[in-house]
């Protein structure tokens, strides 16, 4: 099997396992949460949360407050970042690509031609033929 396909298949299997576990949790919550014939208020009272309608109201109230707080924090953070000169990162353009594959260099003094391969990404020259041997320093 191709490596890429192997990883895709593995990922998919893991995802299915997580979904199956979540379904299991939901089913167990459902089984433990409300017994047949039991009302929501009875469950709420047993758990010390009060009546169902109050519980609902309380939850809604908390959510709104949380939302308002989060929005305020976000706005303050944005103002602070802009004031500090922050700008959203720009997407980096891809590096330019050269069109030449090889370079020939004439050498007037030693009457030779050197041949270089051109790296398509880094655009550096790699000697293939005829570059000067560096001098041996003492």
């Amino acid at each position, binding site marked *: 099997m191709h490596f890429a396909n192997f990883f895709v298949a593995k990922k998919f299997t893991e995802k299915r396992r997580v979904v199956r576990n979540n379904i299991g949790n939901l089913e167990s919550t459902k089984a433990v949460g409300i017994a047949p014939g039991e009302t929501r208020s009875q469950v709420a009272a047993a758990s010390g949360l009060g009546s169902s309608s109050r519980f609902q109201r309380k939850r809604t109230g908390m959510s709104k407050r949380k939302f308002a707080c989060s929005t305020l924090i976000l706005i303050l953070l944005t103002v602070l970042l802009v004031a500090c000169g922050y700008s959203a990162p720009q997407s980096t353009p891809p590096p330019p690509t050269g069109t030449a594959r090889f370079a020939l260099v004439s050498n007037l003094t030693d009457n030779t*031609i050197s041949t270089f391969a051109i790296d398509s990404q880094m655009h*550096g020259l790699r000697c293939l033929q005829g570059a000067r041997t560096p001098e041996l320093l003492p």
Partner: protein
Amino acid sequence: MSTGGTNSRVIAVEPSGRFAYVANVVSNDISVFSIDPNTSSLSLVGSPVPAEAGPEFIAIGPTGKLLYVVNQNSNHITAFSIDSNTGALTPLPGQVPTDDAPVAISFDPSGQFAYVANFISGDVTAYRVDSTGALALLGAIPADVNPSSITMHPSGKFAYITSLASNEITAFQVSQVSGGWTPLSPSVATGQGPTSATVDPQGRFVYVTNAIEGTITTFAVDGANGALTLSSTVPAGTIPVALTLDSSGRFAYVANEGSNNVITFTVDSSTGALTPSGPPVDAGAGSSWVALIE
């Protein structure tokens, strides 16, 4: 790889990229190489082909089937036909006169005209190119003192000549009907010792190698009138003598005759500014020309 000649300077690559020619200025001949398309390794094809005195510059003509040779010491142009199978050169009869000490030839993009810079007479001789590639002398255009190189704008509307003695580059407007030139005054200062001018493929920038001061100057081209404006200057190696751009215009390769190496530059697409993309790479002694194979 040895050229088999002496004072090997200008390289011309045949359009298919299968053959390369090198002018040997002192031994008065042309070396012929076949190029391996996969590895680019060179093989010398036979012995160097005799040319006239001082083949200072060579160029493949507009048809891709002829090699033109500028003979500095005999003041004329000669031509060879290229065998498309073997790359072998066959001399064509006749010589076309230049003025004193021709050093460079350039063809206009339409292929109708050719121009030769004459170093000692300080002018440019213009030629009409017929369908067979034969050159007919039209006349001479006065240039600055000691013109050292000549380059045409890709639009065919402008031409540029560097002057080694006055450290300037002059822009000319080109008549695409008569082939005549009109100077766009004034000339613009280059660095010390301009030896070559190269226009980028989009015609937006001109690059000049300044051999004496070891720099490259970038000029911005006014697309409407061809005028040049100094844009930036960067250090090169010792005695930079030639600059070659790839066909994308994004990379420049500079041959440094004094430091025996080549520097690759990245070209800024908006300003034309050059930035070295790495350290110089050693070539042979007296690196004087870079030809690219794509």
